[in-house]
């Protein structure tokens, strides 16, 4: 779900932008290596090393790797996750989406960005065993 809850769904693929960036970087790198007939100057090697720095992995790539490292048929559930008080949740922005539950007078929020990664959270709230899915 979109963070800003815009009425129209956003369409961002995790892999396509990476491929596009890779193609762009390879093209630039090729230009840098073939320009001129003399041996490359130090500044050019520096430039090339910069181009060949591995790209950060996308969420989809990290997610796929983690699944394979465990059981490729299963998503990596989060069991009894650590919780923090609302004032200490610096990892959340005000417009981040959460799923919120109140059990036995105890309120707990589960950030969508986190539970959509694990899909399943096994937790205990006021002595009640909960499975939160997304």
């Amino acid at each position: 779900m979109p963070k800003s809850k815009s009425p129209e769904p956003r369409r961002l693929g995790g892999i396509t932008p990476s491929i596009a960036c890779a193609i762009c970087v390879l093209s630039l790198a090729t230009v840098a290596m073939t320009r001129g007939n003399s041996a490359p100057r130090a500044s050019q090697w520096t430039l090339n090393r910069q181009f060949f720095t591995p790209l950060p992995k996308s969420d989809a790539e990290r997610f796929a790797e983690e699944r394979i490292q465990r059981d490729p048929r299963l998503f990596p559930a989060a069991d009894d996750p650590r919780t923090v008080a609302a004032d200490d949740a610096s990892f959340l922005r005000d417009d981040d989406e959460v799923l919120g539950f109140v059990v036995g007078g105890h309120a707990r929020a589960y950030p969508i960005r986190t539970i959509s990664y694990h899909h399943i959270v096994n937790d205990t709230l006021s002595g009640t065993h909960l499975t939160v899915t997304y």
Partner: protein
Amino acid sequence: MKDEATGSEWLHMTGESYKGPLTGSRLTAHSGRHVLWREWKQDHPNTDVMAPVDPSQQFSREDSYRGTGTLPVEFARVLHDTHNALHASDLLFGVDSGVEAKAYPFKSMLGHKTAVVNDVLARDPIVVGLHPITRSPFGYRRILDGTVLSLQWLPSGHLFDTASGSKFNLAGRGVSGPHVDQQLEPLRSMQCEWYGWYSSRPHTTIWTPKT
């Protein structure tokens, strides 16, 4: 979902086991709310929140959480033929009474004059709505002390019962009037995409605004 203790497999949309020794069992549903963090904090100042297991184990804000990219062709065709006014990934608020299921598409509610629907589901008076700015849905039984309420939207972001003069916040809590501090009963509901709701509740009805 698969539980390691018994090896049973479960449908996450309904909590029903369809395979293994617990086939036919159903997990108890807890009503929650799908809202923005600032809304949840405002309604529940003492809340705690799940922290990421690892900073890498969460999606970035720029990534998509949508899941319609891999729908089987046949299912996509059934979806289209069933109700072609809805796209597979259209968001909706789904309510399941256990007897009847009904979908309230966001785009229909946003087109409604107040984004608040006083409705009846399986003979039970309910109110369903969508905050017009944050797009956070809500749903409650609209009965208190044996009286059926008729709730209207206030620009302050509250619900107002015209008969009693009571005002409720979107967490269903009475904040003023005769019903102050009383809690409307939350519905068994969820925010989801059309394809997910339809796949688990193919007999669902779909709310449309009265013209």
